[in-house]
């Protein structure tokens, strides 16, 4: 990848973890969807929803947090929709990234930018 030199260090930290997860494989777009508020007044509890039809696993990352990993969700046989909602902490305005591993082993990627008014790491 060229032209990525301007990214802050924390963004590449998240990219490092994503590369570790995917083994450097291409991440395509697909039905994977991440829903988050455009603006979160309180970074301590930001509601997010991830929908990943056909995925066996979804990993969530926040590229501006001190540690980018957020959660890894595996879907079992009794889960019809492969959708889950939770609440996460965001230290500052940043992207929340979802990486889904599909049944055939390929990866999909989706992200949402969240503007955070008050950070959620207890600065």
């Amino acid at each position, binding site marked *: 990848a060229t032209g990525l030199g301007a990214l802050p260090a924390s963004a590449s930290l998240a990219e490092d973890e994503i590369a570790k997860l995917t083994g450097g494989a291409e991440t395509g777009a697909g039905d994977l969807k991440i829903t988050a508020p455009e603006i979160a007044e309180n970074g301590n509890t930001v509601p997010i929803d991830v929908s990943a039809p056909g995925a066996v696993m979804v990993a969530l990352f926040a590229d501006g*947090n001190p540690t980018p990993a957020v959660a890894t*969700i595996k879907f*079992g046989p009794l*889960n019809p929709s492969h959708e*889950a909602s*939770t*609440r*996460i902490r965001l230290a500052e305005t940043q992207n929340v990234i979802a990486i889904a591993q599909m049944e055939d082993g390929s990866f999909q990627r989706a992200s949402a930018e969240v503007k955070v008014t008050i950070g959620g*790491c207890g600065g």
Partner: protein
Amino acid sequence: MASGVKPRVKVPKTASAGETITIKTLISHKMESGQRKDDDGNVIPRSIINRFVADFNGQNIIDVTLEPAISTNPYFQFEAIVPESGEFQFTWYDDDGSVYETSKAIEVS
């Protein structure tokens, strides 16, 4: 053991066979991230719930690995298929080794 940990789960009491239902779970837990400092500048050690599992009659619905970026009082909402009458099992695993469990029965008519 973290104090005041209480799991709460919302599951319908009845469903028809094969129906998809929505489950909401919340466990009261401080989820200390390991990033915060106390008044003397010492880092407060991490203490979180690191895994949450929901099963129905021994079959898995969802299995989540939680990191410190999950909010205080971890909340999850998801859907499940109910093939027959039985019991939902919810399990949370704490960093300190504690395991919190709760179950909910559902009647399929």
